[in-house]
């Protein structure tokens, strides 16, 4: 058949994503003897971990009142007990060992004494337990990248995973990859494919994440028939920049907001005021007030803005405590600089009110995994933000960093183990990959149609308005209708203006859009199904939490339709049956 050339290479484990989850998976798989490659959609440093404040929840033993049981319980409490309890338990138990791994890699956690880490509070936690390092997510990604380098692990920059390719029995045996730098197609045969592509923040108009987080891994997993879980829960960070446009949505670190509460759970966090000078958070959480969880604060701020009590620029005012300036400057100099450049000196010194607004931060749901990051499709693994279940309906501040280390490692170990026995790709898989590449190559020839960037912006606005912080049945129904229409009518009409194959951004955006539309529709579908308010999911037509909804929603694709199913929460007593449905169908 005709079509673009498809070059092949063989690996044991292909890992898509160059953030901490992907790098940790690569280290683990490599150290277990597997031949590994890491795919980065852009340069390897273009990832979400890089942007994180790097704050890391773990039970170090330095706070005698804290325990892994308490961390486990805090995480369940924050997730409203619909987390996958087994995954949460693993997070609580293994976080500290992975923090020591990072130190072994070369990271130096902030210390108060030579062998004593500095601990602080974080959003939603009940104990002083959070580690940090002044180099933040930059430091974490740097020390890990150099660990990959000394191991000689191959990293393919500008390589976008487009599809997980399955054999006739449904097992993933290859990766269809687009080399954006050259505009060429690759079929990487493998025995296990790890998705570590991060979240979906780019589906929203205002977001804090990197431009690469377009939900690729979730869309790719869904096209293989894999299940996603908790996908209705999107975490918004309450405290982010409002202006200028270039940095709108970028997270303002919690220490500024927390003030003295950063070190003392009984102290007050910075007050939040609307344009009438009212402490509006008191209406929503009179007990924890501004020290409440991220979901409550983000929603409270958004409602003030939507109901016309925000600032002219579209935010609310945070009144920081200037007394914490010195420690803030020492610990988080980067943020002082950002405040200075964008807001002014008084704000940077925490002496004047700071405008803040919520922003799409972290995808709580994602690909459904078991304790070893196996998805419901054989040969396909997922770890980090792309996966769901660890955090439930809401996430503690400081818990994404241990999540991506703990489950990145588990994904890599399990994939390497699987790769020992798994069969390689067949001729049929290669043909399937070639057909798909030929179809996607067609974007380049089309002369009229819609530019991907226009559709992308439409999706971002739709998600922000209708599938964002404030949701309702009619809006979600409308969003689903629009997603169906975009998929059936607009996606086939996408055009790529330039015929060049080299670094063609529009072509990349066209490939991303397919994922964005699938993921957006899945999010809206689950959000419509969950008729209550819980954690990050707020329905104006069902504004209360409903104990009958203490369950999870699974979503998967059947053809172009989204199927949704209720499932009891997996507790520590539930047998692990992630593969059950797909294996039964395969038989």
């Amino acid at each position, binding site marked *: 058949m005709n079509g673009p050339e498809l070059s092949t290479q063989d690996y044991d484990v292909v890992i898509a994503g160059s953030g901490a989850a992907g790098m940790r998976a690569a280290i683990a798989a490599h150290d277990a003897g597997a031949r590994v490659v890491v795919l980065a959609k*852009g*340069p390897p*440093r*273009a*990832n979400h971990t*890089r*942007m994180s404040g790097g704050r890391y929840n773990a039970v*170090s033993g330095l706070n005698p009142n804290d325990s892994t049981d308490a961390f486990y319980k805090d995480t369940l409490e924050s997730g409203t007990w619909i987390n996958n309890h087994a995954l949460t338990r693993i997070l609580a138990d293994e976080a500290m060992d992975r923090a*020591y791994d990072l*130190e*072994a*890699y*070369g990271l*130096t*956690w*902030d*210390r*108060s*004494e*030579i*062998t004593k*880490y*500095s601990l602080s509070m974080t959003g939603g936690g009940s104990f002083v337990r959070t580690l940090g*390092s*002044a*180099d*933040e997510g*930059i*430091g974490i990604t*740097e*020390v890990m*990248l*150099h660990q990959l*380098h*000394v191991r*000689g692990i191959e990293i393919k*920059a*500008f390589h976008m995973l487009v599809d997980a390719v399955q054999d006739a029995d449904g097992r993933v045996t290859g990766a269809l990859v687009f080399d954006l*730098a050259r505009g060429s197609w690759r079929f990487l045969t493998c025995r296990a494919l790890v998705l570590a592509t991060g979240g979906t923040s780019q589906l929203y108009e205002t977001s804090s994440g*990197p*431009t*690469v987080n377009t939900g690729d891994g979730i869309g790719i997993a869904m096209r293989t028939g894999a299940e996603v879980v908790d996908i209705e829960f999107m975490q918004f960070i309450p405290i982010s920049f409002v*202006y*200028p*446009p*270039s*940095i709108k949505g*970028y997270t303002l670190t919690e220490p500024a907001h927390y003030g003295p509460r950063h070190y003392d759970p009984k102290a007050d966090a910075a007050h939040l005021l609307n344009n009438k000078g009212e402490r509006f958070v008191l209406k929503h959480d009179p007990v924890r007030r501004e020290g409440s969880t991220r979901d409550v604060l983000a929603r409270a701020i958004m409602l003030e803005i939507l109901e016309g009590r925000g600032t002219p620029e*579209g935010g609310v005012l945070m009144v920081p405590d200037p007394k914490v300036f010195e420690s803030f400057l020492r610990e988080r*100099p*980067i943020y002082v*600089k*950002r405040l200075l450049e964008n807001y002014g000196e008084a704000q940077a010194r925490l002496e004047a009110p700071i405008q803040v607004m919520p922003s799409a931060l972290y995808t709580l749901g994602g690909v459904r995994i078991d304790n070893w990051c196996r998805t419901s499709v054989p040969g396909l693994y997922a770890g980090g933000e792309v996966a769901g279940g660890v955090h439930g309906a809401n996430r503690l501040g400081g818990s994404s960093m241990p999540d991506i280390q703990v489950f990145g490692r588990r994904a890599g170990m399990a994939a390497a183990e699987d790769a020992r026995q798994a069969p390689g790709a067949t001729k049929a898989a290669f043909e399937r990959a070639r057909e798909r590449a030929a179809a996607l190559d067609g974007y380049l020839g089309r002369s009229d149609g819609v530019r991907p*960037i226009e559709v992308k912006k439409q999706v971002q606005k739709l998600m922000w308005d209708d599938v964002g912080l404030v949701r309702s049945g009619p809006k979600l129904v409308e969003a689903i209708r629009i997603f169906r229409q975009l998929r059936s009518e607009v996606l086939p009409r996408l055009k790529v*203006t*330039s015929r*060049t194959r*080299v*670094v*063609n951004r529009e072509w990349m955006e066209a490939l991303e859009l397919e994922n964005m539309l699938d993921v957006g529709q899945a999010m809206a579908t689950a959000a419509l199904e969950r008729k209550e308010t819980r954690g990050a999911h707020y329905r104006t037509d069902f504004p209360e939490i409903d104990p009958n909804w203490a369950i999870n929603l699974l979503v998967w694709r059947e053809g172009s339709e989204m199927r949704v199913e209720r499932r009891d929460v997996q507790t520590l007593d539930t047998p692990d049956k992630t593969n059950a449905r797909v294996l039964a169908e395969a038989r």
Partner: protein
Amino acid sequence: MNAMLKTITVKAEVSRFNPETDEKAHFETFEVTGIENMRVLDVIRSIYEHQAPDLAYQFACRIGRCGTCAVKVNGVPVLACQETCKPEMRIEPLTPFPVLRDLVIDRTEVEERYANLALVPHRDHEHEGQPEAVAPDLAHEICRLDSCLACMVCVSACPAVEERAFDGPAFMLKLRQLAIHPADNMDRLSQAKEGGLVECFGCDLCTQLCPADLSPAQAIRDFRNDLLFGR
């Protein structure tokens, strides 16, 4: 948005180069209107969105952390996301690196150079799974050096890199980070010497331009001090 924010119209000459069709780069001129303190990245994105759908450019974080949007503006290497726009700008890809297309450079060789330096602590003993003995101030200093974005702004600006056998300030800074790490036993000074430590002119341009407010020049001075007087 804020009615107080003033707007500006800037003229941007953007370097265009497609290896499939062009022998050498040429400039294309665009006008972009936006708020007065918009960043160079805002200008580039606006050109892509409204005027040149085929423009190749790179960014990811837009907040000065990923270090991947570095370009030259009026001859000076900067991060596009951090640099405030100028009324008249000439925007070019970062030199002296190979250009993939338009403003996007190929960093493969840069990464190989990092890899060759083995920038991880080489330990006498495995990490023991408890807090390593590092003085708080030293830990902080290691973190500071570890905040290097690897954006290559300093390497691009360095006159010694252009004229002499010098790897560049960023590599010296990373070597310094390992040199002061108490668990690392590799001879980082020798590596720095091999990388051209003595070739540095001491002009301090790297420090003045560093988007992360680091001082590669100080790292070089510290190494030179070690070279003369020992550690």
